[in-house]
């Protein structure tokens, strides 16, 4: 059985998948465990959330 502990690299891919609502329960569980102990990935998660909000607002906030 694969470890419940994943690397940051794997966690980054899951964070992206989470933005697309594409994770199954096992992936969600591993990501949650990883985020408990990893500040870097927690930051990346917030970064991606801001990126998403910004792109949604792109046509409203774009100059011109």
């Amino acid at each position, binding site marked *: 059985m694969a470890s419940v502990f994943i690397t940051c*690299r794997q966690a980054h*891919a899951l964070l992206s998948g989470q933005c697309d609502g594409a994770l199954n329960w096992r992936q969600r569980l591993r990501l949650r465990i990883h985020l408990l102990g990893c500040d870097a990935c927690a930051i990346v998660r917030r970064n991606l959330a801001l990126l998403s909000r910004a792109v949604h607002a792109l046509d*409203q906030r*774009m100059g011109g």
Partner: protein
Amino acid sequence: MAISFKRDEPGSGPAGTAPAGGAGPSGDAAQGIAALQPMLLRLARLQLRNEAWAEDAVAETLLAAVEGLRTFDQRSQLRTWVVGILKHKIIDQFRRGSREVSLEAEEELRDGDDLGELFQADGHRVSQPSAWGDPEQSLARVEFFTVLQACLDQLPAPLARAFLLREWMDFTTADICKELQVTSTNCFVMLYRARMRLRECLETRWFAGDGSKDHG
């Protein structure tokens, strides 16, 4: 591309000048639509990543908007309404160019980099990401969106297409796979690469630089 809306009166000024008089609400709206042209073109370029397709999509949008003005609900925002039309015209362009779009996506998936430089062999990050501070401050700044556009522009075309279909057009990943004619796995790979590249770019060009603090 130059599209202007000529008025009936002889001797009226070029499009963009104030009407001498006699222009009803629809005249004002037509002027308003014409004024959106540069913004529409920038959006179309970002999403389509093909100059000719972008110009065609915007031309079709302007025409459809002017012809459909009667159906425009005056209480809603003109900009939002026209951008909604643009999104449909962009999809039409994707379908016309589907062969090229799918070939470029295949190429990116075959030759594109896998972000290896971001991670060490053991899967840890090479550099620590930085917390981006108060998101509201950045989202309130027009300059932030200029940097975001530059970062989107730097992405390989297939990644930008996939990412904007997802995050700007609100497509499901299933629909993105269909438009770009890639497998579901490859679709996630492209979205992942796009997000990581954009994150790095924003961090370097906005959050780490002075950009986010210039007018703080």
